[in-house]
């Protein structure tokens, strides 16, 4: 079945960009600068508080018209919308995990005279990331499902080709959609497996 490369490429690109966004926003939320903190908080609330479909349409139709900015191809718009949306959700995981690293860890690092940057890089983040992994895996599965929305801004992903097949022969609808279900599930399998792995790793690394 065609369209699968679109689904996968959108997933990979938006996942990478989304995780990046999550780290940037999560760290900004913990910044000592109140302006950075508030601005990031605003971004997170806006993207968590509105629906992904509406954000997709905004970026694809409204933003170019209102501000005369071309965000590029519908592939790119899809990736950006999914990344910004899930980045907002996952930034809370980043923030929560960093805060969950025991205070004694920062203090021990300070006692060894590490700078605040070294404390974050060598001590806090490695422990926090282990806590994030399982949640990140769950969100990856959700991102996979969200990729089907790019169909709505005219991209030819597997949902699009599924719909074409169905409109050619309406009696095929159950088969086509069953196939689609199986497809998404097969794509999700390695992610589910990775998530399991991540849970094991995170259990090993953090217990003290």
């Amino acid at each position: 079945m065609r369209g699968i490369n679109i689904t996968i490429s959108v997933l990979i690109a938006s996942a990478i960009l989304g995780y990046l966004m999550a780290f940037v926003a999560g760290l900004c939320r913990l910044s000592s600068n109140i302006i950075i903190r508030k601005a990031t908080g605003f971004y997170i609330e806006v993207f968590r508080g509105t629906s992904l479909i509406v954000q997709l349409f905004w970026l694809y139709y409204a933003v170019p018209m209102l501000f005369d900015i071309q965000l590029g191809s519908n592939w790119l718009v899809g990736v950006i919308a999914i990344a910004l949306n899930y980045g907002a959700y996952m930034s809370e995981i980043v923030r929560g995990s960093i805060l969950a690293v025991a205070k004694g860890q920062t203090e021990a690092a300070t006692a060894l005279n590490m700078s605040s940057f070294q404390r974050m890089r060598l001590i806090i983040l490695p422990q926090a990331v282990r806590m994030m992994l399982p949640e990140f895996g769950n969100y990856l599965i959700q991102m996979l499902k969200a990729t089907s929305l790019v169909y709505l801004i005219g991209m030819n992903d597997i949902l699009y080709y599924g719909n074409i097949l169905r409109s050619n022969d309406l009696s095929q609808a159950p088969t086509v959609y069953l196939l689609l279900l199986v497809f998404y599930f097969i794509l999700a399998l390695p992610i589910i497996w990775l998530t399991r792995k991540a849970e094991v790793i995170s259990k090993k690394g953090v217990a003290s």
Partner: protein
Amino acid sequence: MTEPIVTFQNIHKSFGDVEVLKGINLDIKPAEKVAIIGPSGSGKTTIIRLLMTLEKPTSGDIIVDGKNLWKMDKNGKLVDANEKHLRQVRGDIGMVFQHFNLFPHMTILENCMTAPIHVKSEDKKTAKQRSIEMLEKVGLGDKLDNYPSQLSGGQKQRVAMARALVMRPKVMLFDEVTSALDPELVGEVLEVIRDIAKEGEMAMILVTHEMDFALDVADKVLFLDEGVIAEQGTASEVIEHSKNERLQSFLKRFRA
């Protein structure tokens, strides 16, 4: 007279409305071993945390090796220290915590060699070698690749000491380092501290409830009571011959 390595000048510390330290004055000479005893809540931990820069004094000055810890000179004026200044001054100080605070994501060896490499820019080989030597000294040469979660409390605390020692501090702080341990593991940790103390050149401040241990290693003992130093002198003067009533009733609880 040798210059003190650490001086507290009229240190006050409040948490909110509660004044925990009410004017602490203190001189510690290089290589001097000082034990701090006193009831729970008297401010022992706070004294140590102020010196380690984990807590900021409300007023007063702390001088470390001639440098003001919490204040720095800026165009001839004394202002609050920034991180760079704190890092310059606190490099002389090391600390061992009550609850070890080892880094759980690193092996024992990595726990020890990370700071020398990143903080002191030592090359990896030297840092590794020195860390191994230090771990052997505390009796853990066979555990280098273990993770902290695989060790007993006593072993963890010995790693924590090795980790602090490889940084070669001039002053080492111990905050009730045996009170989180099972009784049968206390001895091995005190043994290591004794050995370090005998070597001599490093000053040590020990908050402890082990009176016999204090008698053994401390040159000076401070009795802290409600945020003031109520009594001080040699270990024998304070622990064995003091007339201070509150000190005596405090000590009675350890003589049972």
